[in-house]
Structures are given as structure tokens and as C-alpha cells.
């Protein structure tokens, strides 16, 4: 269980997160929705330890991650994997090397075993074996996302973070990526936090949805509860109404 308690973060005097309270249940996919620039990625970066809060706590299994240092911080990071918005594949490494990277860094597996696991993940992501010798700049947006997902999944994480996993993809590829996320979740049962503004697709993968607006969580519940939520802000966002989007 991940618990976020009264999380506050400001950048140059501007309060981006203004007292976030949220619980992310173990083994479920929680999606944080909200319009662009509202601070969804900032929230995610706090939970993965890339940003430190001004105040508040993030508890993972009742341990405050802001207080983790040295080996305990490393152990926490070994439990998680992140699918970044742009994939964050290493430009200088081939697809194969990118997917193998976490295994080479975190484990003492033999090269044969690493190769076997990389190829299994390529198959799982519906990527042809010819792709493995290519470099990230030779891949389409959808392929990059799938390679990045393969790199995240090869770590067999307990906790997965998805930062806008389908931004910039066409509708078929959007559905493919969401399908792969659902499939890998069914296989592995990881706890997941996804930030996204892709409505209504996120309702198909989420167990819990929370809406972030003006630095606060204004609604949280099952996808059904959010879709019928009485708050006009929530309704305005999920129906993509113009006046709200230009607010």
C-alpha cells in the first residue's frame, strides 16, 4: 500500500501540489487524471523519489520514502519500474541493450539468460526480433513505448509507474499499449500508479481513478463512481468541455 499524506510542493512560489491525500491499494491500478500541467507528473516524481516534497509524507509499506537513504533507498528502487512519457530509452544503446540494461545492472544473470529474457519480453510486446538491433531513433512512437514497457517489465517490479503512457500515439496503438498494460498486470499483479488524461481509455484499465485539480485530489473512486461523480469539474473534464479546459 502506498499512502500519500498532505503532500505539498511549490516551484518558485507557485504551489503545484497543495495537500494531496491519496491511497494506492496493493495489486491494483490507480489512475490519476487531470488536465495538462496540473501537476500529475510532479506527483508521480515524488513517489518515485525524483523530487522531495516541501511538506507531507509518502508512505510505502508504512515507510516514509523521503527518509530513505543509501541501501534502503536502493532496495526501494529495486522494487519499482517506471514507464516514462517519452520512453526514456538510452539513445546510445540498441533495443536489446536497453531492455537488457536493468538485468545487467541489477542482477548477476549470465548473458545467455539475459538474452532469453529479453527475447521473451520482445515477444510479449509483439515486437519482431529484427527490432532488437535497432536504436531508439529508428523506432516509431508506438514501438518506443513497447520497448520501454518491455524494459520496465523485465525488472519484474512490485510497483509500476506509468507517466502518460499513450501520449502522442494513434488510437490503435493507444489501445495496444493499454491492452499490454492490462495483460502484464494480470500476469504479474503489480501495484500501479498511472498518470494520464486519456479519457475514456483509462477507465478500462483502472481499478481506482483520482482526479487532480488545482493541486488537490477533488475526487477518487472506482471508474464507475468517477464517471457519475456529482462534481461539475469532474464531469466537465471527463466530457472534455471547452470552458473547463480553457480554465
Amino acid at each position, binding site marked *: 500500500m502506498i499512502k500519500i499524506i498532505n503532500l505539498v510542493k511549490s516551484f518558485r512560489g507557485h504551489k503545484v501540489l497543495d495537500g494531496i491525500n491519496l491511497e494506492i491499494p496493493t495489486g491494483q491500478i490507480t489512475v490519476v487524471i487531470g488536465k495538462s500541467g496540473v501537476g500529475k507528473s510532479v506527483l508521480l516524481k515524488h513517489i518515485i523519489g525524483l523530487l522531495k516534497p516541501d511538506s507531507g509524507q509518502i508512505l510505502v509499506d508504512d515507510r516514509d520514502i523521503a527518509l530513505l537513504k543509501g541501501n534502503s533507498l536502493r532496495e526501494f528502487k529495486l522494487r*519499482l519500474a517506471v514507464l*516514462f512519457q517519452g520512453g526514456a530509452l*538510452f539513445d546510445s544503446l540498441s533495443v536489446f541493450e536497453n531492455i537488457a540494461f536493468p538485468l545487467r545492472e541489477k542482477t548477476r544473470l549470465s548473458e545467455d539468460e539475459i538474452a532469453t529474457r529479453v527475447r521473451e519480453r520482445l515477444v510479449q510486446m509483439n515486437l519482431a526480433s529484427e527490432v532488437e538491433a535497432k536504436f531508439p531513433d529508428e523506432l516509431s512512437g508506438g514501438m518506443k513505448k513497447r520497448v520501454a514497457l518491455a524494459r520496465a517489465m523485465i525488472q519484474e517490479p512490485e510497483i509500476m509507474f506509468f507517466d502518460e503512457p499513450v501520449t502522442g500515439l494513434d488510437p490503435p496503438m493507444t489501445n495496444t499499449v493499454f491492452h499490454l498494460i492490462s495483460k502484464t498486470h494480470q500476469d504479474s499483479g503489480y501495484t500501479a500508479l498511472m498518470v494520464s488524461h486519456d479519457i475514456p481509455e483509462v477507465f478500462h484499465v483502472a481499478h481506482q481513478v483520482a482526479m487532480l485539480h488545482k493541486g488537490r485530489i477533488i475526487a477518487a473512486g472506482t471508474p464507475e463512481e468517477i464517471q457519475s461523480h456529482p462534481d461539475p469539474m469532474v464531469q466537465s473534464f471527463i466530457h472534455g468541455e471547452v470552458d473547463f479546459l480553457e480554465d
Partner: protein
Amino acid sequence: MANPIRQLGQRSLNLVQEAGGMMIFLLEGLGLACVPPFRFRRFLQELQNIGVRSTLIVMLTAAFTGMVMALQGYYTLRRYGSEGALGSVVALGLIREMGPVLTGIMVSARAGSAVTAEIGIMRITEQLDALDTMAVNPIQYVVMPKLLAGVIAVPLLTAIFDVVGILGGYLVGVVLLGVSSGSYFSSMTQSVVMNDVNGGIVKSLVFGLTIILVACYNGYYTEHGAEGVSKATNQTVVLSAVLVLAWDYVLTSFFM
């Protein structure tokens, strides 16, 4: 009146803060060289990128520098009938000053800018964040091998610069202008002492560390997308060239 003073004060504070940040960054980078994993392969890759790939441009610059020094030196020395001292003039000029300084400036222009652009792009495309979330320290994986490679590569490139420069001077002084080959080399061996060589080595070590530190720091703290990378790269070339010249004065006054 208060406003410009406040601005000056703010800028001074920012400068001190930046210098302090850079020192902490350097200490962290060098400190991580002493703890496993040692990243020897990454170090060799960076030695190739920073050192081997700068060799040609350094040799080219060295050849023309030696040639022009011989040309200028010859016509000045001829007025006093001392053409035989040409080898000494060329070698001392190269070993003490021109070698380390021009090598530093060429490495900053070729490798320093590339290092900033590479790390800056890694920053804006979240590759550094990706390393961090995989429990891989980005400073240890990306920065530390470059710092070590800079410290090793620049003195070696400076040595190449000195040798090629002396040969360039030989080409102009001996082959084209007719100075005797024996006096070119004998004046050189008589006037160049070990202190001159040591001074050049120390300078090149300091320049190498400075250039790659500035390049890595600017890349690591790049902000604001592609424009930020462009600004950081530009800043690296300008700042490292100025620092090389400033360090040169400080170190020369120390060795004199």
C-alpha cells in the same frame, strides 16, 4: 540606485552558489570513482570519445601553431643573428603555454560541447531519471567516467600537441627557412628543463578536469528543452575557454 546594487549582490550570490554547486558535483563525481561498480568499460568509451576523437583536430592545430611560431620566431631572431635559438623558442612556447592552452580550448570546443549536449539531452528526455529509478546513480554512470577520461586524455593530447608543434616548427624553420637541423634540436634540449614539462603536465591536468567538469555540470542541470541544451552547450564552450585562460595565468604565476 538600490536596484542595481541589489542586482549585483544577487548575481554575486548566484555565482558563489554556482561555484559551490560545481565543487560539490566534482567531489561527488570523483568520490564515486572510489566505490563499486567501477565502470571501467564506460571509462574506456569516454576515453575514446573525449581523447581519441580529439586527436586529429589537436594535431592539426598543433602543426599550424608550431609552423607559425617558427615563422614569427625566425624573423624576430634573425634581427639579432640568433636563428639557431629557434628550436628553443618554439619548444618553450609550446610546452609551457601554447600546448596546454590550445589543447584545452580545442578539447572544450570539440568534446566539451558534445559532453554537454549528450548529458543535456539525457536530462530533457528523462534518461537520467530512468537511470535513477533503476537504482543506477546517474553521476556514477554518466559523469564520473567522463571526468576521469578528461583528466587522462587532455595531458596525453597536450603531449601530442607539443610533439606535432615542434615538428611543424621544424618543417618551417629547418626545411623552408634553412635553419640548421642540429641547432634547432640542440637549442631545444639545452633550454627545455624538466620544470617546463612538469608545468605543462600540471596545467593540462587542471584544464582537462575543468573543461569536463563544466561540460558535465552544464549538461546535468540543463532546463527548458532543446533551447536549454543549446544555451548549456554554448555556455560550456565560453566558460571553459575563459577558465582555461584564467587558470593558465594562475598556474603560470605559480610556476614562475
